[in-house]
């Protein structure tokens, strides 16, 4: 078997809508698992931030969903999928500062409109598939190949 064909799901968990009390647990767990795999610290930093934003997005904006992380020898893929409502204007959603977060979420310090921008900033490749009324699947890919440092 070729090295690159090895693929391992290291995280697969449900994320409930509106449950801020556990927000961040999945990304913390993923972070410690990546340490166990010996992933470089600065790569972990990028993945942890992107994953946390994905996790919080599910909590704030969706009817619930799941978070999954896959490791191959060349990259980490974090996939967030939810049960809706879908993103109506994807272009707008990527604009810094744009947010559809509720007043409640904003009062808690969330919904600054940086979520998708941050995920894009910290991942090497970002794929979004969304359908209003159905749901969204966001895939953030972070390379493990040593090619230049992060854009921080």
């Amino acid at each position: 078997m070729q090295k690159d064909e090895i693929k391992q799901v290291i995280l697969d968990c449900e994320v409930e809508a509106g449950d801020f009390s556990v927000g961040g647990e999945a990304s913390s767990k993923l972070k410690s698992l990546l340490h166990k795999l010996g992933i470089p610290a600065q790569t972990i930093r990028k993945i942890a931030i992107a994953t946390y934003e994905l996790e919080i997005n599910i909590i704030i904006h969706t009817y619930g969903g799941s978070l999954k992380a896959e490791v191959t020898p060349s990259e980490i893929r974090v996939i967030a999928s939810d049960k809706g409502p879908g993103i109506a204007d994807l272009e707008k959603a990527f604009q810094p500062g744009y947010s559809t977060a509720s007043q409640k979420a904003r009062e808690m310090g969330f919904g600054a409109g940086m979520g998708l921008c941050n995920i894009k900033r910290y991942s090497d490749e970002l794929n979004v598939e969304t359908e209003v009324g159905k749901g969204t699947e966001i895939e953030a890919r972070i390379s493990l190949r040593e090619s230049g440092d992060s854009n921080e």
Partner: protein
Amino acid sequence: MSNIHSVLLKPDKCKGCTNCVKNCPTNAIRVHQGQAKIKEEYCIDCGECIRSCEYHAKYGATDDLADLKEYKYPVALVPPSFYGQFTQDINPAKVMLALKDIGFFQIWDVALGAEALTQVTKEYIRDNDRTLISSSCPGVVRLIQLLYPELLGYLAPFKSPVEIVAQRAREFIKAELGAKDEEIGIFFITPCPAKMTTVNNPLGMEESYLDRAIAVDTIYHELIKRVDNLDDCCKIEGYDIPYFGISWASGGGEADLLEGISTVSVAGIHNVMSVLEELDRGDLAHIQYFEMVACQPGCVGGVFNVKNPFLAEFNIHNLVKKGINLVEQDLNKYDMNLQNSFKEKSIASLDDDLIVAMAKLTKLEKEIEILPGLDCAACGAPDCRTLAEDIINGLASRTDCIFILRQQVADLADEMATLAHALPPVMKRNKEESDDDED
């Protein structure tokens, strides 16, 4: 003194309970055959195990007063928290005179370095627009090196006040007296093992400017005896008490001095970890400075101190009330920049090779599924996850878990009962009945 760590164990006192195991922030301790064992590569010398051991089996290595004789110019460095060990009638000048009486050639206040560092830090944050984590607590720095290497870039690129003052004192004595390096002995009076360890293992530097460290509880008795003989209103000519720097001794003191900067103060190693987890989730851009100390409620809570941490904090608060200004000093006389950046000390990975680590991770997750998840620590590891990791690394076995062991014994007993009733085919059935009668 041990060259690697200053937290050590007295085997005859250890009862094999798991208090320290459960309190260790880095999961560095296991109990094996009735004895706690510290895994050196995981230990950050924070002293949590000393604090949590009811049997006083853990202790901190220390130099002592007899070591003063080895130097022509023994110098004492007094940390801010030391002043919390005395009530109001014993002022810092009195403490200094008593230290001189013990045999120190000069006494230097670490608080002066703290005041200087505060000013430089403030400027640095303004000029660089960066969020910093204080690098003054060696326990916190080692924690980040070990468990949060992704956050190393946040650590302030400055020496700790202790090192800053140690260097300054050494240079001063060399210049003023023409003393040679080996004639000068810089003794730090340390409130904690974390700082003790920096004498031999400095952080971000090749070599420490300290020569020795004496634990507060080792020097306290000698000092108190001498303080009692001193005049009540003694003063030292030309000595400005660095009240502001002394406020570093209690939680928030360091951050409060950074006027105009948004700060968060965290005391206690487990609290520090909870905030580092938050930082891991993204930039907390609205916070510019994190004061983080391993002990609660600040350095007054160091395990070598003799006074209750909260009463010591009260003493510090009373003392610093008298402060009006920072002590005027020439900041150019200090060399605050670290030579090296803080290095990752990662030991968390299961294997250096990613493919092997991935296979081990699968095994680890399976092992965790098997264990009961009660985190009782009866196996000698702090929790089931850690036991699982020890098992897959060949350092423990599944039957170290008493619940699994019991289950296996029960299974075995069932099997034996079944076997006992399975008669050899040559025997007659009625023999079994007569056996039963005998019971």
